[in-house]
């Protein structure tokens, strides 16, 4: 519980620290007159939009809320608030983190979302659990990406396989798998270069990596996570769709939740693509990656 509080306060700190100017203090909406009327719904709509939930999902949530308020004879905004949170929590479902080993996770996503950092933090997390971790420096495109991952490997006591810049990323993955097998390691974390989801040829490259993993580690538990930046708006839906069309996505890592962005777009992604949110990034330090908790996420959404 203590740990949870720590996480919650971290998120809350980010979420409430900018009250000036354009930002809205969403908490306010529930402290209004207490009557459930059009104003109230409009305020909820605003709050959800500002949290990047998106118009379509917002309308869906409000429809459900209206139905439930009627069915359950809800009279106060305080009760309505609880109902609203429940609706969203239910939409997000439960989060079960993979714990079958050997485990291979391929991380994909657009540029600058924090793939390399997420891998570094996750490696440390697995390391703490006594797992043996190997990293594959599959981003051979961005200058010094392998160096960045190497630093994370050192910090988290993981081993790393890397090639020269510009090398074939699939070859890096292949070599990392051989090293992973030889070491009898538990977790293989594969970094990839950031790529915009509308670049066909770069997306195809991911398929090759996925094939190699499938072929070389048939018995392993294979996961592909898309890393999404919480500051991203509705485009995150396109990102998730396009990556899902290319590779077998299993989950989302939502990064940068320590800012003022709330990452509400994952609700739509979760609903539309049935993609669970696995982890969230809440800070710069190595321990600042947490297992996603729908309860805390929804609470933070409205603080």
């Amino acid at each position, binding site marked *: 519980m203590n740990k949870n509080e720590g996480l919650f306060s971290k998120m809350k700190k*980010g979420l409430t*620290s*900018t009250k*000036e*100017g*354009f*930002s809205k203090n969403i908490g306010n909406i529930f402290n209004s007159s207490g009557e459930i009327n059009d104003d109230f719904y409009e305020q909820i709509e*605003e709050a959800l*939009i*500002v*949290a*990047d939930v*998106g*118009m*379509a999902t917002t309308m869906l949530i409000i429809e459900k809320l209206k139905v439930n308020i009627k069915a359950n004879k809800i009279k106060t905004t305080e009760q309505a608030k609880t109902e609203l949170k429940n609706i969203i929590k239910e939409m997000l479902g439960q989060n079960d983190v993979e714990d079958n080993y050997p485990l291979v996770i391929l991380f994909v996503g*657009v*540029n*600058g*979302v*924090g793939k390399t950092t997420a891998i*570094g933090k996750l490696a440390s997390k697995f390391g703490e659990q006594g797992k043996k971790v190997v990293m594959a420096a599959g981003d051979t*495109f*961005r*200058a*010094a*990406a392998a*160096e*960045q991952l*190497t*630093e*994370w490997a050192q910090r988290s006591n993981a081993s790393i396989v890397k090639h020269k*810049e510009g090398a074939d990323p699939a070859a890096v993955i292949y070599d990392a798998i051989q090293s992973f097998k030889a070491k009898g390691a538990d977790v293989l974390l594969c970094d990839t270069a950031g790529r*915009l*989801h*509308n*670049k066909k040829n770069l997306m195809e490259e991911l398929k090759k990596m996925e094939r190699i993993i499938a072929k070389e580690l048939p018995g392993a538990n294979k996961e592909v996570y898309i890393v999404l*930046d919480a*500051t*991203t*708006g*509705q*485009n*995150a*839906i*396109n990102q998730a769709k396009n990556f899902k069309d290319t590779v077998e996505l299993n989950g989302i890592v939502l990064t*940068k939740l*320590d*800012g*003022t*962005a*709330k990452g509400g*777009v994952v609700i*739509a992604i979760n609903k*539309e693509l049935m993609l669970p949110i696995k982890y969230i990034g809440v800070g*710069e330090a190595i321990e600042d990656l947490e297992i996603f908790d729908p309860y805390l996420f929804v609470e933070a959404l409205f603080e």
Partner: protein
Amino acid sequence: MAFESLSEKLQNAFKKISGRGKLNEKDIKDAMREVKLALLEADVNFLVVKNLIKDISERAMGQDVLNSLTPGQQVIKIVNEELTALMGKENTKLNISPKKPTIIMLLGLQGAGKTTVAGKLALMLKKQNKGVLLAACDIYRPAAIKQLQVLGEQIDVKVYEKGTQKPLLTAKEALRKAQDENCDYLIIDTAGRLHIDEDLMGELKELKDNLKPSELLLVVDAMTGQDAVNVAEKFNSTLDITGIILTKLDGDTRGGAALSIRAVTGKSIKFAGIGEKLTDIEPFYPDRMASRILGMGDVLTLIEKAELAMDETKAKELEEKFKTQRFTLDDFLDQFSQMRKMGSMNDLMAMLPGANTGKMANAEIDEKQVDRMEAIIKSMTKKERENPNVVNASRKRRIASGSGTTIQEVNKLLNQFEGTKKMMKQFTDMSKKGKKGLFKLPF
């Protein structure tokens, strides 16, 4: 949630009421709901949208729109005008310091693309024959310095770095070096940071106060959502930035963040990152961004051009002619010149959304061919133009030699004319049940 373009949505909204002719306030209100949705889907900030809708509604209530035969297009035009006005004028000039070097500081959130932009800007300036020095002041992200060094090598621009020494110290030393080497520009790459991180914002303030840069450019990811306003406002209020660079614009984001940032800071967006290569940076065009946010290609430009070129009475006459099948070669000729007024055919094709893809890209229209077609029609007698059926073999020979073309070309033109006539007939039949103004662009 496939993007349906706003223009389509508005056309549909207005189609429902087209039978009544004039629009009323409720119609406009419904249309505004569509505009609001489109802007929110494009990630324009909620409050910015609210203000915009207020302004747009007021203008849209004006008599010009209500009486117009093409209210959908009128409303789109107003929306676009308001957006363009808000986006500001093109301003891609860098502030130059009277004393060398001009210092450019790059700042922003993590992952916005500052280091890449530093490399791109350096290359752009180097190509203008300027001396550039890059200073690596991101001492926090692992290997950030190395990244800048690799970029520097690729573009052959020197990078000054002193490891994880205090950024201010490194920057000051870099400045001295730039002065010694008589560089025109010093570009300072700083660490990505959260706008709410007081310590790190203080570090930037310190850098600014000591170095007095000519440009403090906020680097923003074009895909940013509603939070863009918080970020931009905080950076601007703390540091009084001089401009913005928008990155990752080569994705498929609508980029509403651009509008939000501009609205809260009032600062110009100077450049845009449009690809992975180091040459992929270009001046920012506010007007293009406005139509991108609306999801309409350059349709708006096309509407305006069409309106200028095609006056309504002429269009009505033509419409009448289609209906009665009295469409003659003279009208055909008239059409050519109307089109000409709108600009070159290739320009027009390029402006249509989706026209750049697939087959259309290869369908280069030969302007010369249009010249020849005009010449052929002009070589015909009045009788021939009114009734092409009379054009027999000997007339064809005469027309061909008169226009400096061949009989084959004359045949081709006559076939095209018949084809057009048939097509137009179908169009008019199709839209008889629908709108009043028939001769409209098909969107």
